């Protein structure tokens, strides 16, 4: 295909004032990418470790948790926390997109409220899930 790379591009990210709708729009893409790669690889890793038998799953758990406290190590903990928030953020912006697909919610005020709501919902659900995990010990 003939494409001229010298043609100018719209400076779309640099000239607009940021608002919640822009933020959640790019977050939908960023969290989707993080989930697709990070979440996907972790999911496959977890399942293949389980399928490999008891010793193989023990190695997986050993890598993820600390021997001293039995709790998640810092890095796996941060990754899982980030993926949990990414999931709920992607889920709420996804539901918002499904509603927008019906043609509803394009009025400026409602659109902005919906965008802010996705951030509130994702953060609340993440805190609830990790609260439940930390409360029961692991």
């Amino acid at each position, binding site marked *: 295909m003939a494409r001229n790379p010298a043609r100018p591009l719209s400076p779309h990210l640099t000239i607009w004032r940021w608002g919640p709708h822009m933020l959640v729009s790019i977050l939908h893409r960023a969290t*989707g990418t993080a989930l*697709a790669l990070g979440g996907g690889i972790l999911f496959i890793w977890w399942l293949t470790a389980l399928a490999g038998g008891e010793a193989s799953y023990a190695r997986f758990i050993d890598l993820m948790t600390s021997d001293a406290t039995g709790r998640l190590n810092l890095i796996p903990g941060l990754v899982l926390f980030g993926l949990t928030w990414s999931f709920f953020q992607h*889920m709420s912006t996804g539901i918002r*997109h499904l509603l927008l697909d019906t043609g509803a919610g394009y009025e400026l005020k409602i659109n902005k409220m919906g965008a802010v709501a996705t951030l509130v919902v994702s953060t609340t659900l993440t805190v609830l899930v990790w609260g439940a995990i930390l409360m029961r010990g692991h």
Partner: protein
Amino acid sequence: MGTGTGIGRVRGLGSAKHGSQHWWRQRLTAGSNLLLLVWLIVSLLRLPLYDYRALMLWLSSPFTSVALILATISVFYHLRLGLQVVIEDYQHDFSRVVAIVALNFYAIGGAALAIFAILKIAFTGAAA
């Protein structure tokens, strides 16, 4: 109908009738992801995740393993469609082709690996 240029060869043939397929399947798998992943998160939160036997028992139920296989197909199909759009937005020419091929390998290979692991556990795992 011409035979020379690309546009000449396709002019007059009409659309390929697949214009809305990608858009629709992205939404279809969004819906199935929502159902299956909410189920998965609730199920996982009720399990002792460090306990091998509890997980094997959980996965040996047909309801669990089939739901997890469906979740794998739905998620990997959805991520293949989604990352395709991301790649098409930021990559051009040769690197776009390479990235799309790599994405297809990842989506199909990853899903196959996960489904095989689920089936292996379902068929051989739960010797309690």
